[in-house]
């Protein structure tokens, strides 16, 4: 199971773009990169998953370089409601690996 490293915390202001980088140097060939978002007193919410290059949905974009040893979650024009903890997880679909959340990145958005 690839180990991930991400910043403990980040601050931003409303309207700015936020990029959270996750390092996963030991990522395996069949591993996917997955991000969850968790608001206080709620369960985590799946926001995006990717394997290579770029993935975009209505919430975020995920950029993955060719070597796949890192990835960047991009949140466009954040609002106060994006204040949350963001978890980066790496592992294979369909395998027996479990999600190991770590402490995530605590994003604080200020007005």
């Amino acid at each position, binding site marked *: 199971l690839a180990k991930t490293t991400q910043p403990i915390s980040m601050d931003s202001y409303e309207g700015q773009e936020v990029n959270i980088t996750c390092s996963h140097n030991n990522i395996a060939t069949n591993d996917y990169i997955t991000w969850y978002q968790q608001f206080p007193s709620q*369960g985590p919410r*799946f926001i995006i*998953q990717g394997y290579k290059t770029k993935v975009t949905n209505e919430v975020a974009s995920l950029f993955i370089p060719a070597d796949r040893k890192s990835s960047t979650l991009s949140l466009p024009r954040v609002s106060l409601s994006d204040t949350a903890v963001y978890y980066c997880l790496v592992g294979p679909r369909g*395998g027996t690996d*479990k*999600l*190991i959340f*770590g402490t995530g990145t605590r994003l604080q958005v200020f007005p």
Partner: protein
Amino acid sequence: EAEVAQSPRYKITEKSQAVAFWCDPISGHATLYWYRQILGQGPELLVQFQDESVVDDSQLPKDRFSAERLKGVDSTLKIQPAELGDSAMYLCASSLLLGSFYEQYFGPGTRLTVT
């Protein structure tokens, strides 16, 4: 939009008492997970079910914790006896496919306080 239901949302119990949590996954989701989240940390998997069978309970403290999913639908997690260190958020999640890295849908959790 379908959601994972959990009850109760909050529970306060005294140490040495028994406590139980209930989870109803999204209809049709065969895979069900129970996680424990201590304040300031990420969720930690306790047990995973596929239908009514346990797939992984390696992190479940079996001397005091038990989990069941008798008909392969809803599930109950029990702690007996509760200890002060069990104070945490207990989260249930479900997914359509077997494999933790397919999208998991989490419920709102049960906040347990042991006094």
